[in-house]
Every structure is written in C-alpha cells, then in structure tokens.
C-alpha cells in the first residue's frame, strides 16, 4: 500500500474535514444527544422499559413487519428493476416515474389511502375480506403500508447495477453451455447481490422508523398491532420524554446491529471472489465444476 497516492483532484483534506463536520452536525449530534438523555435512566431501567409486555410485542411487530416488507420488496423490486432496465415497452418512462411516487407522497396520505382501499368496503377490501384475508387494521396492513413506502429503495439501487451488466456476459455464458438458470444463478445474481442487499437494508431501516403511514392502517391494538414508534408517541403523550428516549435508543441499537450484519454480509458477498481465492484457484475450481 502506497502511503501517498496521487490524486487528480486536490482538496482531500478540506473535503474530509467538511464530511466529518457535516455528518457530526447532522447525524451524530442529535443521536448523541438522544443517547445522553437516555443515559439519565441507567441501563437496567432502559432494559426494563424495553421488556415491558406491550413494548416487547411492539418490537416484534415492528421488526417482523419491516423484515417482511423489505423481503417482499427485495423479490418483487428485483423483478421490477430487471423489467425496467432490460425490456423496452410502451409507457416505460411512465412506469419508471411511478416507482418514485411513494417517496414523494406524504406518508400519512399513503396510510389513509391504503386503509380506505383495503377496508371492508374498499376497492380491494371488498373482494379479499370475503376470502378471509383481512388487511386493514391487522398486522398484515402494516406490512402492506411498509412495502408501499419502501418500494423505491430496492428498485432504485438495483437499476444502475443491472444496467452495468453487459448482455454479452449472458451470451458468453450461453455459448459456454450454461443453462438459463445457471446464467442467472452463477453470473447475474452474484453481480447484483450486493446491491440487492443494500436495497434490502435501506428498505428495512426505513420501515423500522416509519410512523405516518402505519398508524392509519394498523388498528393500533395493544399487543397485536402497535408499532414501536406509536409507543414512543404514547410516552411523549405522557410527557415521559425519558421513557420515549429509552425506547428509541433500544430501537436504534437493534437496527444498528442488524444493519451492521447486513453490511458485513454485503462485504462478504462483494469480496468473496476477489479476495478469498487467488485467480488461478478460482479458475481451477471453475474448470473442476465444468466436468
């Protein structure tokens, strides 16, 4: 590793300083303040608050629904991104623009609209409720709202990566005798997997903190469909700022650990071919596989 590398653009020191100050002011300061506030309580009390029966149920609902929503988006978002990049079709630009709408819409509007559509007399609710699927005012409604709100994350992170995969790569795989499934599984998927994880992580993180859209469709019943942000509001309603901060800190800690895990997985996925095996070994292995 060279100690000094030549850089084309000057001003690295300035830019780094700026980055650190900017991130500190914008992110570290408020988060640090929050953790400082929560530290008034002491570790045991924070754990006590987080392990209350209603809080535990809310943590389960929040993280469960967020994970499901992110997973649903990882699967369907991949399909959407693939279609939008690879196939020309009439109205493609329109569909492409549609993907960003959940970002632009105030989340409360999204929640109210979804609740109206999925309610027993709504456009969708009237057809699916007789079949036994209740969505509005159940935990399933939370998943629907979160899926809606986080859709753009997966699609938008995948699109540029899919664009970078040259169709020639697939053709080369085909000429070397790979089946369609092998081409996808061995060539395309490894290339997009890190981006897919990024999209998943972004969607998941966004879903955990989501409040506005969820409360209108969740039903908010204690132990059943209360999310953690609702409990935080409930604490604030009691002017219990400390308790609210405690819940927020626990939520932050869990999210941080999960995102760290996803990042680690992503790092591993991106580097396993490059670093873990020397090129000769990888080539040899590929040869061995071919036989």
């Amino acid at each position, binding site marked *: 590793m060279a100690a000094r590398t030549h850089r084309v653009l000057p001003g690295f020191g300035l830019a780094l300083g700026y980055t650190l100050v900017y991130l500190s002011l914008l992110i570290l300061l408020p988060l640090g303040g929050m953790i400082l506030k929560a530290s008034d309580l002491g570790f045991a009390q924070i754990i006590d608050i987080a392990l209350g029966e209603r809080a535990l149920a809310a943590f389960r609902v929040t993280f469960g629904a967020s994970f499901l929503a992110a997973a649903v988006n990882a699967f369907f978002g991949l399909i959407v991104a693939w279609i939008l990049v690879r196939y020309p079709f009439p109205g493609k630009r329109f569909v492409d623009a549609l993907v960003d709408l959940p970002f632009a819409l105030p989340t409360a509007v999204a929640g*109210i609209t979804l609740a109206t559509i999925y309610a027993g*007399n709504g456009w969708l609710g009237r057809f699916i409720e007789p079949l036994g699927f209740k969505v509005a005012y159940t935990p399933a409604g939370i998943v629907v709202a979160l899926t809606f709100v986080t859709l753009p994350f997966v699609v938008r992170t995948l699109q540029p990566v899919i664009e970078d995969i040259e169709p020639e790569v697939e053709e080369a795989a085909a000429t070397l005798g790979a089946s369609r499934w092998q081409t996808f599984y061995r060539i395309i998927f490894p290339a997009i997997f890190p981006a897919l994880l990024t999209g998943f992580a972004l969607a998941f993180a966004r879903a955990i903190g989501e409040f506005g859209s969820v409360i209108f469709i969740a039903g908010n019943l204690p132990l059943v469909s209360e999310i953690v942000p609702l409990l935080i509001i409930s604490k604030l309603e009691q002017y219990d700022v400390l308790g609210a901060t405690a819940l927020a800190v626990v939520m932050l800690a869990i999210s941080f650990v999960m995102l760290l895990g996803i990042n680690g997985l992503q790092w591993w996925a991106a580097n396993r071919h490059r670093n873990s095996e020397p090129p000769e070994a990888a080539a040899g292995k590929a040869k061995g596989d071919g036989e």
Partner: protein
Amino acid sequence: MNFLPRTIFAVLFGLLTGTASADATLLNASYDVARDVYKDYNPMFQKHWKATTGETLELKQSHGGSSKQVRAVADGLEADVVTMNQANDIEFLADKGLVAKDWAKKFPNNASPYTSAMVFIVRKGNPKAIKDWPDLAAPGTQVILPHPKNTGNGRNTYLSAWAWALRQPGGNDAKAQEFLGKLLKNAPLFAAGGRDATTTFMQRKMGDVLVTFESEAEMIAKEFGKGEFEVVYPSLTMQTEFPVAVVEKVVDKKGTRKQATAYLDYLWSKEGQENAAQNYLRPRDTELLKKYAHFFPPVKTFTVDEVFGGANKAFATHFKDGGTFDRIYTQK
C-alpha cells in the same frame, strides 16, 4: 424565468411590512380542530381591540395535537396564549413554570370558555338500538374510538364509560375496569385520532357506534349529510372543557400581557360566546345556550374534577404506563 425571485422578494417584503405595521403580535397555540373557532374569533377580537384601544393587533395561530403544542411551547415556541382541549396539557406548562399555578382561577368557569360533551354516533335508524354505555359493551357491537392512551378524544371516551360504570348501583373501580375491558374488546381498532375515527366510521362504514365530541357530530353532518347517522346522548357523559391560559413567561418578555389577557377575556363576551355556539361548542352563557338549544339538547354530564379529582390524577391513574388501560390488556 426571473419572476420567481421577484415573487419571493415580494412575499418577503409583504411579510416584513405586514408585521411592522401591527402594534403588537399575539401567537395563539391551539389544538387541532380549534381552527374553525379561532378563524372567526381572531378578526372579531382585532376589530374589538382596535375600537377600544386604537391598537392594531396581529394575531397568529398555531395548530397541532394538544400535547404536541404544549411541548412546543415548553421547548420555546413563543406563544402568548394557549387554548387547549385538555387540562392536563396546561398543568404541564404550569409545572414547567410557564403558566401560573392557579391558571384555572384566572378566568371564569375553570378557565374554559366553552364545553362539549361525549356522544354516540350510530347508523341511520339505530339498527343495534344503542342507547347507553352498556350497549357498547354488549357482545356483537363494534365500537370505533381513537386510541385511549394517545388521544384526548379516546381518553374522554374511556373516562366517560368509567364514570358511568362507577355511578351504577354497587359500582366500584374493579367493576368499572371490568366494564371497560368488555367495551374495549368491542373495538376492532384504535384510530390514530378523532378525525381518523370519524373517517373510519362514516366513510369506511366500520363499526356500529362512534364515540366523539358533540361538536364533531355537527361537523359530520356538514361533511356526510344529516340523514346518514343519528346522535345518541348516553345517560351520563363527560363535560369536556377547553381550558385557556396566558403564558406568563412569554407575555412578560414580549410585553403583551394586557393584550393576551384581553384576548382570552373576550372569549366570554357575547360575541365570543356566540362564535363558540356557532361552532357547535356549548357556550357558558345560559341565554345563548337557550338560543341555540336545537344544537344542544340537555344532557347529564360530569366533570373530570368531580369524578376523578382532576385531569392530572385521572391521567396518572388510567393512562400512564401501568395504569388501568394497560392493566386491561396485560392482566389476563
């Protein structure tokens, strides 16, 4: 393309000169649905103040959830007066030293210029024959209400049902809690707020009965038509108060005590009371109450002070973490 900077400049200029021309500015931090009340009241008071003192007053409004507003004031929002829908919100400001400890005595009627009552809204023809609180706890009835822990509207509903159960022959706290347990089991959801509950009931047609403010019933009539629902007055219900207070710290700093006090005093004038009545809030003025009797049929009410010994105490017993509401769900 340079009309935009010009427009911005013009708007800024307008704002600056607008504020400069007033002799004093008052900010009223208020709860959410009070918008209509103060939209009409503010110009009335401006005219009155100009006529009596010659001063031009600028009045600004800030609306939001009652407790959120109070927190904003505690955190430094420079409101001269607060006009809320729950006494415990103003108590919070009194605890913080922003509002006088004896704020409730500074104005007549517990510092609440008008009141409302919690009522039932049922579907046209009252198909489930809902008359009183026990009908809401009967098996097979669906009740729509906002979250009792997080919204003033939901808390008033909860306390009304509790007070009814308490006042029954042989009624006590244990029986009241059991009754509330049955009633809450009939709630298929807890709405996010008062208006969300109304939408759920009226537009999404969920539930058999909605519990809300009497004043909200008239709003529903305007929005959805009178023939769509009926209002049922239970045998006992809460008289909800809308307390007001001067924010001492702010008026001392800004030198607006005189104007702020007069602004709130004027709520008790004939004009102020009539404005409340026209917004379907029960005026304290008995003559006006008679004049608008078609809006306000007689109903037997209780106040939180009478039954629960004050808003703060009621809140602590029932809605704090570990209070009766939590126990209904966690004690199986």
